[in-house]
């Protein structure tokens, strides 16, 4: 009997927390389908029919799909760069016994300790002198260095890329880079996928860098556009809610397909780190 009560309490706890996680999103979606006057006056619990009207007003002020496409472009390019160069360096650290290898690897790990905002003003000034302000280069090129990715990839290469396969590639007359591209990368694909998901989410959520390096509204990313909703629609709550829905629902769909992989990746990264 006490067993049943304890279990019921535990389930109740799990369900209450789950509801706390989902209710704000439910409320967003519901509210986005009502008129401004209803949003102001009532507590809304069921869907209305004003979504398209709210959407039209949003679309006339903020080019939200353009922001979506911009973010997608930046995120996909930097994810590819991020994953490729992390794999390259992780494999380099794993399979080549060059001098100062351990020291250099420690240095890579050490760079993870540096807080992100420390260099942001110098970064802005340097991008200005490279003539890269208001372009996507400052958002994409820094993906070349990802210490955490190298750490992850080295672990994977140590345990799952057999040195014999590298040797056999050399016997077949492949160059070192060819071996990496044609033989090693396919073997590393599970690790590439895990790191890719992290890189993708991180870049998709990036806010400060686009906020300071991009000036042109048409180049701007989705998070910056979402942040501007508040100031652009001071009293049009319907349009703001629609903007949020556009930002959240695709992520929700993506996550419902990838949740297991994402969560297992976090768990693996945490235990190793």
């Amino acid at each position, binding site marked *: 009997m006490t067993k049943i009560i304890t279990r019921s309490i535990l389930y109740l706890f799990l369900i209450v*927390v789950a509801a706390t996680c989902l209710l704000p999103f439910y409320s967003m979606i519901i509210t986005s389908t009502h008129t401004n006057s209803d949003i102001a006056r009532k507590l809304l619990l069921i869907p209305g029919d004003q979504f398209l009207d709210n959407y039209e007003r949003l679309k006339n002020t903020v080019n939200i799909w353009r922001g979506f496409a911009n973010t997608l472009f930046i995120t996909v390019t930097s994810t590819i760069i991020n994953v490729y160069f992390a794999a390259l*360096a992780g494999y380099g650290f794993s399979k080549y016994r060059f001098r100062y290898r351990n020291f250099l690897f420690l240095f890579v790990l050490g760079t993870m300790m540096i807080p992100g905002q420390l260099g942001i003003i*110098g970064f802005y000034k340097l991008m200005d002198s490279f003539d890269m302000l208001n372009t996507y280069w*400052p958002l994409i090129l820094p993906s070349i260095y990802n210490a955490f990715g190298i750490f992850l990839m080295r672990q994977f290469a140590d345990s799952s890329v057999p040195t014999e396969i590298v040797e056999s590639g050399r016997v077949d007359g492949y160059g070192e880079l060819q071996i990496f591209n044609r033989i090693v990368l396919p073997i590393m694909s599970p690790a590439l996928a895990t790191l890719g998901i992290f890189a993708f989410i991180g870049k998709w959520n990036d806010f400060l860098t686009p906020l300071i390096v991009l000036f042109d509204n048409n180049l701007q990313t989705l998070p910056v556009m979402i942040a501007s909703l508040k100031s652009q629609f001071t009293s049009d709550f319907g349009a703001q809610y629609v903007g949020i829905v556009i930002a959240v629902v695709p992520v929700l769909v993506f996550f419902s397909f990838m949740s297991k992989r994402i969560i297992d990746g976090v768990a693996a990264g945490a235990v190793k780190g």
Partner: protein
Amino acid sequence: MNRSYYGYFFVAPFFIGFAVFGLAPILYTLYLSFMKWDGFSDPVFVGVANYTRLLHDSFFYQTIWNTLIIWVFSNTPQLITALLLALVLNEKFIRGKHFFRAVYFFPHIITPVTLGVIFALMFDWQTGSINKILLALGIVQDPVNWFNSAWWSRIIASGVIAWQYFGFNMIVFIAGLQSIPSEVYEAAEVDGATKTQTALHITLPLLRPVFLFVFITSVIGGLQLFDAPLILGDGPNNTGRTMVMYLYETAFKNFDYSYGAAVAYGIFIVVMFFTAITARASKLRE
């Protein structure tokens, strides 16, 4: 044939990328912190003037204080919930583990900016759903103007952050729990230990490395709060303004880049200080 020198080519892109986009900006920021520069004219050397100003800047101290308050209010409930959920979800009889883990983790992958807007809308005093619910339940008579109160603005900012990160920390705790070998629990069971005793005397002590990881990441992350608090606003008398918000506002809104550079190094020192304290405190407990 010795090909080990190829390793240098493979790791070189990291070091080049870090030198250009990581290290150079950090050093350039340091250089700027000794200058006077408004973004237009040439920088002028002013020595430690920016740092002297920083030491006397009550706004900066206020942002340290605000950040610490928001950090404490977000981390305490966040870590307790994460640990409790991890312990519950680690029980064998619980069904639907994947579903619950996924739901709890979901807020973590939403852009912090978006979460900031969501909470700002929810707590809007005229149109937000929170006031509507409180009014409907008869808990308050008049709508509460949340963002007009120093403590409520901080608590809401903390709430957003706690809500966003508890799922992530829960996953880390679960991973830690699963790395404890089952023999330990079997031995405890043979000795007749109760569930509570097992949790207090076996599980928690064995989780210590995981706690250290979670604390240090939460100090480093928690002291750099920016996105969501920026959307929620400065609060009355800047009581909701975090250190990084101050950095951003000084440099990119008031165009005082050189003073902003000094603020950046000030934040760096504060973060290092608290990270060192955390690392030290977790060692002392052993």
